[in-house]
């Protein structure tokens, strides 16, 4: 279990001005325990990559509410009034990215590709100022890869080698972000011995995971 870290070790990984990816979709599958630690550590001026900003009370949106985010890449911010308010006041810079494009930009970074050629957003403000590449007579927007210093993800079952299985709809952006950051921390709902997950059931190979964190049980 050499990959396990506690809250103190986790905070050593955090610093101001970092570029952080956080998994979850409307906070479903979001690593709430890791978000707790960012808040407790006081880390600020973060560039956040997250498909939505949950609510002020749930998921990555808590970091918006706590005013830790300077720049945001997201596909949807409508469920968190704080995000819109800080954007309008100029405190927060927001780049809106179509959800499928966001997923592929992250995947392409992890896969060593030069970005994505997507038809999504053609003829809309999303295409403005971007390169349009024609392939076989069709136009595509060239969207560059998106990577981060740190990815914080959540896994339903994590084995001691760092292999991750996500239950239900909690996969969302988690397995993609695991491939695209210099350092990856998974918050484990449950930790099992290596070998308990079948090779073909694993969504995220353990080589992508640097550290495994489990939220301290405050309720004894």
């Amino acid at each position: 279990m050499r990959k396990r870290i506690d809250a103190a070790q986790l905070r050593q990984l955090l610093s101001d001005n970092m570029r952080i990816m956080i998994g979850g979709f409307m906070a479903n599958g979001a690593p709430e325990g890791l978000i707790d630690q960012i808040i407790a550590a006081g880390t600020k001026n973060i560039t956040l990559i997250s498909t939505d900003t949950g609510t002020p009370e749930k998921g990555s949106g808590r970091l918006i509410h706590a005013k830790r985010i300077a720049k945001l890449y997201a596909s949807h911010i409508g469920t968190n009034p704080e995000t819109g308010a800080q954007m309008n006041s100029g405190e927060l810079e927001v780049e809106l990215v179509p959800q499928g494009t966001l997923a592929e930009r992250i995947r392409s970074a992890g896969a060593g590709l030069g970005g994505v050629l997507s038809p999504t957003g053609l003829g809309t403000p999303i295409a403005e100022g971007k390169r349009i590449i024609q392939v076989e007579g069709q136009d595509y927007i060239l969207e560059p890869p998106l990577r981060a210093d740190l990815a914080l993800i959540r896994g339903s079952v994590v084995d001691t080698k760092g292999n991750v299985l996500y239950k239900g709809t909690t996969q969302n952006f988690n397995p993609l972000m695991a491939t695209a950051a210099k350092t990856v921390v998974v918050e484990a709902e449950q930790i099992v011995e290596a070998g308990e997950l079948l090779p073909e059931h694993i969504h995220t190979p353990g080589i992508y995971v640097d550290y495994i964190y489990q939220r301290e049980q405050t309720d004894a």
Partner: protein
Amino acid sequence: MRELSKQQVRRMIAWRVAQELHDGDVVNLGIGLPSLVANETAKDMEILLQSENGLLGMDGLADSEHHDPNLVNAGGQPITAAIGACSFNSADSFAIIRGGHVDVSVLGALQVDELGNLANWIIPGKMVPGMGGAMDLVVGAQRVIVAMEHTNKGRPKLLTRCDLPLTAAKQVNLVVTELGVIEISGQGMLLRELAPGIDLETIQAHTEAKLHLADTLKTMPIPNDL
């Protein structure tokens, strides 16, 4: 036709959209009015609901007894999965969507125009929720159906040209409202059905774009119990 309540109007639109679906269709329903379509499909028809956050085979909203914290829809609400459902990550979910593997995408709109342009994600200076998965859904689905009330506080939403920023260009195939069913054709807006009790003058008065009449203009069917 007697005056319908807001709820009845929404149900009428959702029911009519459901008649457009075929057995075995893979369908994505937007939040709000479009999500009501799920309740209106024929019971002997198998419709596979895709939820863009990562599930194929969405069943319905979960009651407190069946609540699984690991299973939500694209609105973040707890749901149940149908037998044979499968889950996947967001790249694979949008590969299904963008790759043309969704038969029908049903969504709401702020504006639709004669070219099939759609605006539903931003009102500059007023509302900037973000596009979420809508841009991919409109570009990728085989058929795009807009399900919405015909006007917004009396102002037409079916326009000659959208003036709000677009969600996608030239992708809408059909619009269903409480006044009628309109196909977006190469020649503009083609009125295919008129709701019971609505005449041509009324629907055109509530539509900025010019409505062309289909050769076989029909009365829009509505649920028996409405």
